[in-house]
């Protein structure tokens, strides 16, 4: 009888033990990487899972906007993911809702410090003096260029930052009408251009972002020091818009109202494109296209380029076990983020960034890593810097860069609308 009892207990322990061994801890990881970048992250996650048998990280990707809505709804229902990716400027909004765990001690405990990361990426993880996120990468604008079209025009591609004047001269040389004339030649026909110098976004919020980097190149911030209303000098804003508007309507080096500047560049209709590193997979997939990058032009006094960065956050309301596992996974991911450069994003962790130098086409982005100007980090970020069609920054860009409207009244309207959002 005694033997039977011992046997029973032993079997029970064995079964329970086997059961618990067969059930590794599951971590839910959400990110908005819906393109080839999602595949790179999936590979990293898979590598982690294969080397950490006690944990299974499950990555779910969907577009950022529905992802954040889903996050809010699931947080309300107490079902947050264990790890959530977002952009640096998104942090204050979610932190102000009380949904993110402050990770200052965790990041210190993992041996990370500010000097090991690109400054813009590190600074983008704070809100009201507290750190809420792990900086994963930077992604900023740069100029993609078509090597064949540059050779044909006899232009040597820049190796680093160039001035606005040098950039404009290149763009003029690269713009050709059906009679082979350039915009600076008599008889140039702006209605029959066969090749443009530069493709710029003007219909979506990237028009505003191009303007924002030019404002920052003049040394001004978009908002006042209290970050509760628009605070830049109007003449600086006007100079920035004017430079962009002239590329379209004075120099005719950029096509007006282009639906897809990327497509225009891919097929060789434009020789340059201002865009982010997320377009690299499209460049690599385009047969016959020889391309590379250089930094955006320095039009004004300072070097600055609009950029953002992916960060990793740990939402609140999870048990200690999941929290600890999430911390370990994120720490591992940062230390192995060199391969993340394959997605086009520039790793924020300095030692991981080195690998990016060996990859083609990254030169322009890497040269900009210390000059990234992120949008102001404010709790109303989703409304003030919205990419929706009703967003004042989108409408202002369309008015100035597509409809050639007088800059000052449009800019004043944009400022009023943004201040109204702050005051709501």
């Amino acid at each position, binding site marked *: 009888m005694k033997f039977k009892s011992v046997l029973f207990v032993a079997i029970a322990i064995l079964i329970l033990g086997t059961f618990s061994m067969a059930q590794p801890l599951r971590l839910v990881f959400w990110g908005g990487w819906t393109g080839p970048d999602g595949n790179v992250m999936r590979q990293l996650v898979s590598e982690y899972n294969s080397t950490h048998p006690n944990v299974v990280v499950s990555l779910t990707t969907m577009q950022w*906007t*529905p992802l954040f*809505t889903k996050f*809010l*709804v699931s*947080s*309300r229902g107490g079902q947050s993911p264990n790890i959530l990716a977002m952009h640096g400027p998104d942090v204050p909004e979610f932190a102000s*809702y*009380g*949904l993110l765990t402050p990770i200052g001690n965790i990041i210190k405990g993992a041996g990370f410090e500010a000097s090991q990361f690109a400054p813009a990426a590190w600074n983008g993880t704070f809100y009201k003096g507290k750190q809420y996120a792990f900086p994963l990468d930077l992604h900023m604008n740069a100029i993609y260029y078509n090597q064949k079209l540059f050779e044909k025009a006899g232009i040597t591609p820049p190796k680093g930052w160039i001035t606005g004047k040098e950039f404009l001269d290149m763009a003029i040389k690269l713009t050709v009408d059906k009679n082979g004339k350039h915009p600076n030649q008599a008889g140039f026909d702006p209605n029959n251009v066969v090749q443009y110098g530069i493709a710029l976004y003007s*219909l*979506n919020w990237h028009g505003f972002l191009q303007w924002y980097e030019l404002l920052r190149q003049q040394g001004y911030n978009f908002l006042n020091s209290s970050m509760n209303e628009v605070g830049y000098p109007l003449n600086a804003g006007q100079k920035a818009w004017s430079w962009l508007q002239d590329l379209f309507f004075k120099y005719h080096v950029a*096509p007006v*109202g*282009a*639906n*897809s500047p990327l*497509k*225009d560049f891919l097929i060789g*209709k434009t020789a340059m494109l201002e865009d982010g590193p997320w377009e690299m997979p499209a460049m690599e997939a385009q047969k016959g296209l020889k391309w590379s990058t250089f930094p955006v032009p320095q039009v004004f006094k300072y070097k600055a380029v609009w950029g953002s960065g992916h960060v990793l956050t740990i939402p609140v309301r999870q048990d200690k076990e999941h929290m600890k596992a999430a911390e370990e996974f994120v720490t591992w991911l940062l230390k192995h983020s060199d391969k993340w450069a394959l997605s086009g994003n520039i790793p924020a962790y300095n030692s991981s960034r080195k690998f990016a130098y060996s990859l083609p086409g990254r030169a322009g982005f890497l040269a900009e890593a210390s000059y990234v100007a992120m949008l102001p980090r404010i709790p109303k970020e*989703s*409304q003030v810097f*919205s990419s*929706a*069609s*009703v967003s004042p920054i*989108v*409408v202002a860009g*369309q*008015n100035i860069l*597509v*409809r050639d409207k007088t800059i000052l009244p449009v800019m004043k309207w944009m400022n009023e609308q943004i201040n109204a959002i702050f005051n709501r």
Partner: protein
Amino acid sequence: MNGKKRSYRMVPYLFLLPYLFAFITFRFGPSIAGFFVSLTRWNIVGQAKFVGFRNFIDLFQDPNFIKSLINTLYFMLLTVPALVIGGLMIAMLVDQPLRGRTATRTFVFMPYVIMSTVVGVIWLWIFDAQYGILNYYIGLLGIRPIAWLSNVNWAMPAVAIATIWWTIGFNMILFLAGLQDIPNELKEAARIDGASSWQTFWNITLPLLRPTTIIVVMLTLINTFQVFAQVYVMTGGGPEMATLTVVQYMYVQSFQYYRLGYGSAISYIVFVFLVGLILLERGLLKKSGDLD
């Protein structure tokens, strides 16, 4: 015996129960809750703050909402007559004993089974200013390329064209069913009496199609007032809010700005408009004696 009869009477309701449960849980309940949300300021995660009818008052002082309302009515003006009259014309055509009419019916109806987002993407390519097939063909006629989706004047007509192509097949099917319900004897009698085709259409076909026409008009008004996916995919509401519609504005406020109260207030305005249309439809059907 009475008890047994009563329990038999309950049987149909039991069959309805699963649907009723889903309807109350996922439709009716949230709709009622939505009304209470419309009386609050709420960003999903925080505590909702009761503001009474403030959201509704703010809405009618919000120029973007007024613009979205005007845009939606413009969209309806562009699409509803074309969908109703066009649907009827196509139905009459494919009702004729002509060769290939089954294939024609299929081709006209086929777009309707495509997902709205796919429709948006297809037309995004067709309307592309640089490489779109439409600009290629109008170029052959010597017309300069039109920036269909980036020009404030052309964007809404472009969305309307895509919508007409997508949904006209549904109206055709409804009209076809209505046409086939009209007894042939009546038309033959008219023809024997010397009525022309036009007179037959005007005095026989059209009056007998009245109940179908009322339903088609109402359904088209309801569907076009709720336009969203095509706009979302093709223009995102731009350029310069030229294609911003009421439902899209509701989406932006609720799910991009996280202003659930404001978004719910917009949805209740849509709801009141649609209920008004349905009541009008019932009134018209009742008046014509087609609703017993």
